[in-house]
C-alpha cells in the first residue's frame, strides 16, 4: 500500500492506484476529461497536471498516468501546474464552438465546469475555428462534432467496454473525427451511454432534445423497471413529462452504465392514453364512488357465484409495497385465488429460480464482471436483461470464456457485444469445475423448471433473469402465501371475477369472467376491458421497492408529480376550451394538475383494505419486510436474505 502526500494530506491507497484517483479519495478533484473510473486513463486530454515535488518522478506530470508510489509529495495548487492546466483548457477551447445556449449539454457539461475551474474566460486566440460535418446516428442520439475535445471517451466506451464495432475514430492531426464510417443508427444496445460519458455535447439525447436544462429537471434516485436486473437510474422530468433517464452508479449492480432499453423507454409514462381517472363501465368517476362500486360488484359476485370466485392478481412489475399487501386484500375480499403470475410457466420457472437462489450462490452483476468462466443457459440476454451482457463482456475482456448453452441462447447476443462465445448443447459439457469463480446465467423465458433446478448441481454461482423488476419479490410472496398462477386458477373454472393489480393478463383468460377490475397505470388490454379501473402511479411518480433478480431490494424515489404533461394538454384544460389549445400552459389556476389524481398501487390497496374493515397503516411493508422501510435509495440495496435473520 503506497503512502503519498498530496497537498499536505497524507493518503494511503492500494498499489496500482493512480495519483489522480488518490487525490480524488481525499476530496481533491483535479479537472480531467479522458480519465473515467470505468474506462481508466489514457493521458489524452493533458488536463490533470500536478507537480511532483518529491519521490521517484519529479516535475509536472499527468496525474492519471502516474501510479501512486511511496514517498511521493504532490502539489495540485503549485503555480506551474495551475498554469499548465489553464493553458490546456484554453487550448482545448480554441476550436470549441460558441453554442452553449443551443447545446443540450449546457448546465451538465464537464467542459463548462472545467473551463471555469481552469480560469479561462476570454478567448485570446484570433484564428478561425475548425468545423466538422455531423452524422445522423439514429433516432436516439444527436451528433455535433464541432464540440469535440478529443478525449476518446466515446470510442473507448463503445469499442472496448461495450464491444460495439460501428463507432470509431478517423482522421489525423486537427481532423480527428469520432463517428461511424457512414450515417446510420448506432448498433450497440449500450450506445445511449455515449450521452452520459461524453464530457461535452458531442452526443446528446435526441429524445429529450431542447426540452429542459439540468437545473430544471425533477430528479430522484430510481431503479429501472424494464427488466429484472434493477439497474440504478436517475429519471429526469420537467413539466410533468418524463424526458430522459440517466445512469446512476451502483457498483454492486449496474456499475456506471445502463442499456438503451432502460434509457430510452420513457414514453409510456407520458402516454396520453394512460388511465387518469377512476372509471366505472367506461365513465369517469370519483375515487369514493369507484371504491363503492367495486365493493358492491364484488359483493354481488360472491352472492351469485359463492365465496372464492374472485382472483386477486399481482405481477412482476408491481412494486413490493403493493405485492406485500395483496394477501391481506385477498383475505378480506374472500378471494379464492391469490395470483402473482399470470401464466403457469412463468410462475413455475420464477418460483424454481427463486427457491434455488440463496445468499451464497446468487450472483450479482458485480460477481459476473469478476467471474472467470460464464455459461449462459437458455437465455437471450439482449431480450431478458441487456446489462447482464455488458457485465459478461467485462468478464470476457478479463479472459473468462463464455459458453452459450442450449438452443435458446442465440449467438447474436455475443456478437452484439463482440464476445467470442462457444456454443454447447448441455450444461454438463461445460468445464465449470476447472475455474475458481464460474457463474451460470439462466433465463426464465425459454427455460423449463427442470432445467433451472439442474443449476443447483452446477458448481457455480447462479444468476437468473426473471420476468419483471419485482418478479423475485412476487415469487417470494407467492411461496409464502400459497399463490397460484392465474392460468391455473382460471382452469379450475371457478374464477368469475378478477382484480388485476398492475397485471398484464392475456385477453383469453378474461373470457367468461363477469367482473374485471384493473388497478394500473399503463393502458393495457385489461384496463381497456375492465369494468372498473382505478388509476395508479408509474414508478417515477411514487416511492417504492423492487427486488431484483439476485434478491436485492432497492428503493426508488418519487421523481415527478403525476398529471398530464403540459406539452399537448387538451383544450378543455385551457382558459378557452372552444379554441384550439395554445402552445403555452393554461392561463387558469388549478389546485392540482389535470389528470394528477392518481394513487400508488399500494395506497389503492390500502384504501380498499380500510374500507373492508382492515387496519389502515401508512407503512405497507410489515412483518419480515419491515426491515426494508428505511432502505437507502442511494445505497447498494439489501439482499433479501440479509434481512431474514
Amino acid at each position: 500500500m503506497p503512502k503519498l502526500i498530496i497537498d499536505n494530506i497524507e493518503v494511503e491507497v492500494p498499489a496500482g492506484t493512480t495519483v489522480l484517483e488518490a487525490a480524488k479519495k481525499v476530496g481533491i478533484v483535479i479537472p480531467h476529461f479522458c480519465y473515467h473510473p470505468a474506462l481508466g486513463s489514457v493521458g489524452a486530454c493533458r488536463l490533470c497536471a500536478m507537480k511532483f515535488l518529491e519521490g521517484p518522478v519529479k516535475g509536472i506530470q499527468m496525474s492519471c498516468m502516474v501510479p501512486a508510489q511511496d514517498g511521493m509529495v504532490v502539489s495540485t495548487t503549485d503555480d506551474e501546474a495551475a498554469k499548465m492546466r489553464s493553458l490546456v483548457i484554453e487550448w482545448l477551447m480554441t476550436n470549441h464552438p460558441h453554442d452553449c445556449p443551443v447545446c443540450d449539454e449546457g448546465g451538465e457539461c464537464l467542459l463548462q465546469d472545467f473551463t471555469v475551474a481552469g480560469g479561462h474566460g476570454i478567448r485570446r486566440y484570433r484564428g478561425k475555428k475548425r468545423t466538422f460535418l455531423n452524422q445522423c446516428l439514429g433516432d436516439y442520439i444527436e451528433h455535433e462534432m464541432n464540440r469535440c475535445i478529443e478525449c476518446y471517451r466515446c470510442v473507448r466506451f463503445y469499442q472496448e467496454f461495450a464491444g460495439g464495432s460501428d463507432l470509431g475514430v478517423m482522421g489525423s492531426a486537427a481532423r480527428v473525427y469520432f463517428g461511424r464510417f457512414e450515417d446510420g443508427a448506432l448498433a450497440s444496445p449500450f450506445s445511449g451511454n455515449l450521452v452520459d460519458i461524453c464530457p461535452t455535447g458531442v452526443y446528446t439525447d435526441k429524445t429529450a432534445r431542447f426540452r429542459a436544462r439540468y437545473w430544471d429537471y425533477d430528479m430522484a434516485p430510481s431503479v429501472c423497471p424494464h427488466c429484472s436486473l434493477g439497474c440504478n437510474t436517475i429519471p429526469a422530468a420537467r413539466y410533468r413529462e418524463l424526458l430522459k433517464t440517466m445512469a446512476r452508479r451502483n457498483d454492486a449492480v449496474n456499475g456506471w452504465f445502463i442499456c438503451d432499453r432502460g434509457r430510452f423507454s420513457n414514453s409510456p409514462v407520458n402516454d396520453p392514453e394512460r388511465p387518469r381517472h377512476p372509471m366505472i363501465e367506461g365513465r369517469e368517476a370519483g375515487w369514493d364512488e369507484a371504491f363503492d362500486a367495486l365493493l358492491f360488484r364484488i359483493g354481488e359476485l360472491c352472492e351469485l357465484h359463492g365465496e372464492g370466485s374472485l382472483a386477486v392478481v399481482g405481477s412482476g412489475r408491481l412494486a413490493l409495497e403493493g405485492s406485500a399487501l395483496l394477501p391481506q386484500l385477498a383475505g378480506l375480499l374472500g378471494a379464492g385465488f391469490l395470483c402473482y403470475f399470470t401464466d403457469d410457466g412463468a410462475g413455475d420457472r420464477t418460483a424454481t429460480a427463486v427457491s434455488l437462489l440463496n445468499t451464497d450462490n446468487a450472483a450479482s452483476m458485480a460477481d459476473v464482471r469478476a467471474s472467470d468462466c460464464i455459461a449462459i443457459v437458455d437465455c437471450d440476454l439482449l431480450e431478458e436483461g441487456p446489462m447482464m451482457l455488458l457485465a459478461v463482456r467485462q468478464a470476457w475482456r478479463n479472459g473468462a470464456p463464455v459458453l452459450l448453452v442450449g438452443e435458446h441462447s442465440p449467438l447474436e447476443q455475443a456478437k452484439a457485444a463482440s464476445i467470442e462465445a462457444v456454443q454447447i448443447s448441455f450444461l454438463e459439457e461445460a468445464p465449470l469445475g476447472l475455474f475458481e469463480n464460474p457463474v451460470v446465467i439462466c433465463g426464465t423465458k425459454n427455460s423449463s423448471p427442470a432445467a433451472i433446478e439442474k443449476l443447483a448441481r452446477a458448481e457455480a454461482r447462479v444468476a437468473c433473469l426473471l420476468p419483471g423488476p419485482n418478479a423475485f419479490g412476487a415469487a417470494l410472496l407467492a411461496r409464502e402465501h400459497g399463490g397460484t398462477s392465474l392460468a391455473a386458477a382460471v382452469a379450475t373454472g371457478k374464477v368469475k371475477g378478477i382484480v388485476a393489480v398492475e397485471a398484464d393478463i392475456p385477453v383469453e383468460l378474461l373470457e367468461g369472467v363477469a367482473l374485471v377490475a384493473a388497478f394500473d397505470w399503463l393502458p393495457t388490454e385489461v384496463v381497456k376491458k375492465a369494468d372498473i379501473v382505478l388509476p395508479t402511479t408509474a414508478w417515477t411518480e411514487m416511492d417504492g421497492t423492487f427486488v431484483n433478480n439476485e434478491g436485492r431490494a432497492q428503493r426508488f424515489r418519487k421523481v415527478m408529480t403525476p398529471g398530464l404533461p403540459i406539452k399537448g394538454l387538451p383544450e378543455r384544460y385551457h382558459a378557452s376550451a372552444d379554441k384550439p389549445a395554445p402552445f403555452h400552459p393554461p392561463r387558469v389556476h388549478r389546485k392540482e394538475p389535470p389528470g394528477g389524481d392518481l394513487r400508488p398501487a399500494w395506497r389503492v390497496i390500502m384504501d380498499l383494505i380500510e374500507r373492508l374493515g382492515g387496519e389502515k397503516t401508512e407503512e405497507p411493508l410489515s412483518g419480515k419486510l419491515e426491515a426494508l422501510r428505511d432502505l437507502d435509495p442511494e445505497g447498494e440495496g439489501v439482499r433479501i436474505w440479509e434481512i431474514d435473520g
Partner: protein
Amino acid sequence: MPLLTDTKALLLGFWTTWKHIFRRPVTIEYPDEKRVPYPRFRARIVLTRDPDGGERCVACYLCSAACPVDCISMQAAETDNGRRFAAWFRINFSRCIFCGLCAEACPTMAIQMTPDYEICKREIMDLVYEKEDLLISGCGKDPEYNFYRHAGIGVVNRRGGNPDEEPPVDPRSLMP
C-alpha cells in the same frame, strides 16, 4: 423653560413649511405629465429580433435560471432547419422585480429591459405576458448582433460558413 422651547419648535415647523411653498415641486402631475426615463432604465421586458428579422431568443433557459423570483418560464423547440426557439415564453410581471438579471444573463441579447414603466392592469392574469406580448419587431440594443452568425451550428449560414470558421474538414483526407 418649556414654554419657550415649545414655541420655538412650533415656529420652526411653520417656517419650514413656509419656505417650501416657494420651492419648485419634485413631483409631477402623472399621468397628465410624464417623465422620460434614461435609455438604460429597467422596466418592461421585451424579446428582440436579430438584424435579419429572426427571433433572437433560443430558449436557453438562462434567464429563467438567473431570475431571483422565478417569474420567467419557457419551453424550447426546434425548427426544421435546426434553429432553436421558444415554443412559448412567459413572464409574470406581477412577480417581476425588474432587477435586470435576465437581460444580463441572456447570451443572445434577446431579452432586454425597456424604459416603459407603465404596466398596470386590473386583472392579475393580464400581467402574465406570453411570447406574442413580449416579442417586438426591432433589435433593441446591439442592433448588429446575430447569435447564429457566431454559434457555429449552421443555421443562418451553412456549417463552417461563418466569418470566424474554417470550412468543414474531411476526416478521411490523408494530407498532413
